[in-house]
């Protein structure tokens, strides 16, 4: 790589000609980060960063609760017979485990990412509707608490599985208050999600900084944007169905009551019309996370950026036409149509996998903790993806649906991928949020324990399901293979749970150390790294010019030929006098006090060597 002569270098580069982001940032303390310091402050904050942290912490608490419930499940299944809990408690435990993980952990964690990162990635000071955002968060928290109240209500928590098929979820099938609390809880969190989706769409549409065209947005923002549309499509359907179910239970309607002319199948259609997009609502933000991480630790641009965006759009579109593959065994759906659409969704998904590998291909890879977890995500995702294609064929699905094979499948695609990508995100953005680094050594231990524990727990479930173990059973016949496999899964769960210990140690140590990470510890790409860590109030005191999807990368490597959207120092100099977006750079590269002048001269964007913008 050629380097320009030192005298021509821009900014204040180091020996290799790399520009450091920190030198551009205000250091006067005027714009220092201010998270709320009091309880009242937290209760009344509308700052997207504070609410983002609140979302993520809350969802992690729900992850711990859901994980504890999973522990009860694995303890009960470690041996045949009922040892730990009664059948009724068990049914409540797996119902709330699934509901907490899906509704209260995975989706809200994605909303937390959207809260914290979307404004930063598009150069905005906050979300479009900050007070609506605060309202969404409190609805979510209250909704989650309502669900857990089921455990102390008369008759125990709802015990009909996270998809609540009537008539079992009707007044006769589940008479207790727990079922009503469950319905109200999902209504509240669903409404919260819908409002957040509106907020994200408005923010991305209206608040991008000048130069941030749609095709220069980071892929994470793209994915959260598309996720928000899917939320708008899917969540209201669920809310409607839940209101119908609650009316059946409490107000004497008969939407889903076959005894009075209602239809139990109607619920399944409505639920899965929400339920399958929901899978991608959970997954897409995490696809976005790893798409931010692979390029940084490969020092490469995202490979096939536009193809990746199109693949995400295709997944979003296809996900609305595959729902009935959850209903193959009902005999009530057109098998070939839904088999084909379900199989087709593997195509854009496969494209993503190859894009990720293409990003790393011919790169310069390092394996810090975020990269390790992103690679863990990739392995887990492929493992769950291939079984997804198998289940898309009714000939196979008839045997495997409602067994542990399906449990294994969705714990790979919705459990493992989410957990791995979640930790990739935490390790990656932790320095941005806290200004401190997490330990690499503990991160490595954490990664390998999670990898071993996760696969040990869930891989054997494929075999269990294929060999005849149905899901949602508190007990199973004492057959050698089945019993042994369940014991392996239960031991695996202990390792999986223990993997959180090194992480917690790392978190505590990091928070007690000084905040010295700097603005851009990973030498990353997108705009959130162009502000201090933690970001200042209203995020930015300065923005680099945005000429590709990697504005921070472009600036850092500006002194290197062939790198950066504006590789040419002449272009830089030509630009600085008449582009207001460049004004903050003047102290470093231009004469101070120049008045910006209007000019029609523009840089030809198509000439940029890395920008995907046309």
């Amino acid at each position, binding site marked *: 790589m050629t380097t320009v002569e030192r005298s021509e270098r821009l900014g204040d580069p180091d020996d290799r000609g790399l520009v450091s982001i920190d030198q551009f940032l205000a250091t006067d303390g005027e714009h220092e980060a201010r998270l709320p310091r009091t309880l009242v402050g937290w209760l009344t904050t509308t700052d997207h960063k504070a609410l983002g942290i609140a979302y993520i912490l809350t969802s992690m608490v729900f992850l711990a609760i859901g994980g504890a419930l999973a522990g009860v499940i694995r303890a009960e299944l470690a041996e045949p017979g009922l040892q730990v809990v009664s*059948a009724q408690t068990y*049914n409540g435990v797996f119902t709330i485990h699934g509901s907490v993980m899906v509704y209260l952990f995975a989706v809200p964690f994605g909303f937390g990412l959207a809260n914290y990162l979307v404004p930063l990635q598009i150069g905005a000071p906050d979300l479009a509707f900050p007070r609506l955002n605060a309202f969404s968060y409190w609805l979510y928290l209250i909704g989650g608490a309502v669900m857990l109240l089921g455990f102390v209500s008369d008759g125990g928590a709802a015990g009909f599985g996270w998809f609540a*098929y009537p*008539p*079992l979820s009707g007044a006769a*099938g589940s008479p207790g208050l727990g079922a009503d609390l469950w319905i109200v809880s999902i209504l509240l969190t669903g409404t919260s999600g819908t409002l957040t989706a509106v907020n994200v769409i408005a923010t991305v549409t209206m608040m991008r900084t000048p130069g941030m065209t749609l095709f220069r947005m980071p892929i994470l923002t793209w994915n959260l944007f598309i996720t928000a549309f899917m939320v708008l499509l899917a969540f209201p359907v669920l809310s409607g169905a839940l209101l119908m179910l609650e009316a059946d239970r409490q107000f004497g309607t008969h939407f889903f009551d*076959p*005894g009075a002319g209602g239809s139990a199948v109607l619920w399944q259609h409505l639920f899965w019309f929400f339920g399958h997009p929901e899978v991608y609502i959970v997954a897409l933000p995490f696809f976005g996370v790893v798409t931010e991480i692979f390029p940084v630790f490969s020092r490469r*641009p*995202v*490979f*096939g950026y536009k193809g990746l965006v199109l693949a995400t759009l295709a997944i979003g579109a296809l996900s609305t036409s595959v729902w009935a593959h959850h209903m193959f*065994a*009902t*005999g*009530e759906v057109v*098998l*070939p149509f839904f*088999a084909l659409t379900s*199989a*087709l969704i*593997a*195509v854009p998904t*496969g*494209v993503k996998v190859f*894009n990720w590998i293409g990003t790393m*291909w*011919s790169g*310069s*890879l390092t*394996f810090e903790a975020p990269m390790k977890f992103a690679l863990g995500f*990739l*392995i887990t995702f*492929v*493992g769950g993806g*291939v*079984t997804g*294609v*198998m289940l898309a*064929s*009714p*000939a*196979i699905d*008839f*045997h495997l649906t*409602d067994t542990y094979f399906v449990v294994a499948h969705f714990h790979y695609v919705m459990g493992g991928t989410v957990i791995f990508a979640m930790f990739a995100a935490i390790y990656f953005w932790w320095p941005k949020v806290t200004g401190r680094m997490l330990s690499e050594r503990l991160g490595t231990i954490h990664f390998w324990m999670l990898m071993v524990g996760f696969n040990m727990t869930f891989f054997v479930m494929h*075999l269990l399901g294929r060999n*005849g173990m*149905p899901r*949602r059973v508190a*007990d199973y*016949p004492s*057959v*050698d*293979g*089945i019993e042994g*496999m369940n014991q392996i899964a239960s031991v695996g769960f202990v390792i999986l749970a223990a993997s959180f210990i090194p992480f917690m140690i790392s978190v505590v140590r990091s928070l007690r150390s000084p905040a010295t990470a700097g603005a851009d510890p990973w030498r990353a790409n997108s705009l959130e790294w162009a502000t201090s860590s933690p970001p200042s109030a209203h995020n930015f005191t300065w923005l680099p010019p945005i000429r590709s999807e990697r504005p921070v990368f472009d600036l850092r490597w500006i002194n290197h030929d062939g*790198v950066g959207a504006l590789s040419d120092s002449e272009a830089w100099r030509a630009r600085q006098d008449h582009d207001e977006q460049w004004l903050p750079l003047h102290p470093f590269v231009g004469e101070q006090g120049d008045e910006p002048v209007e000019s029609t001269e523009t840089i030809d964007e198509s000439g940029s*060597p*890395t920008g995907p913008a046309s």
Partner: protein
Amino acid sequence: MTARFPALPPPITEQAVDADGVWSLYLWIAYGVAALVAILMVWVIVRYRRRTDDLPPQKHYNIPVEVLYTILPLLAVVGLFAASFSTIRAIDRTEEAPDLVVDVVAFQWQWEFAYPASGVRVAGTDTTEPVLVLPASSTVRFDMTSRDVIHSFWLTPFRFKRDIIPGRPASFSVNIGDAAGSYPNAGVCAEFCGLDHALMRFSLLVLEPAEFAAWLAEQPTDSPVVVEEPSP
């Protein structure tokens, strides 16, 4: 890992044999895809590990490669779909005139099997699972109803299950092969149906056609029969 799986009996119907054929095909393709991605990952991790601090090539697209890796998966999944299409149709077909019709009634948390042509009914007790008795080498249709919530009639040697939704009688048929024998624990309720869902199991006993006819003729028709559970 030495754990065996005595739990899964061999496929005993034509449909089950077909389904296992599709399963094997998909399984090998799945292994292939997983191996391909694993090899690519190991390759990039080993080959492109950071060795110098130089910036690697910044090429960010390659249209022919991108088209290729869109088309190939498309062909693969459409091919897989086509390969399983005829099996889907065959499995989903319901026989109008089978050798035997069995009425299956599912309720919380038991099964009752009736042979309407002869008036015999088989049930379980509070402590024993019911036993479904079927003739080998014949075509059987199951007409199924539920009395309360949704259940699912799953016989592992059939590699098939069908949900039984209250208010919606369901049917399916199978061609049982020459598979006389006893299949303990082969029958499972696969749709979660409440408190004792886990205990809602049954066993399968397949008799030679002559033996089956004799057995059926011996049974009383006035009350449900409890069949001795086949020994495992």
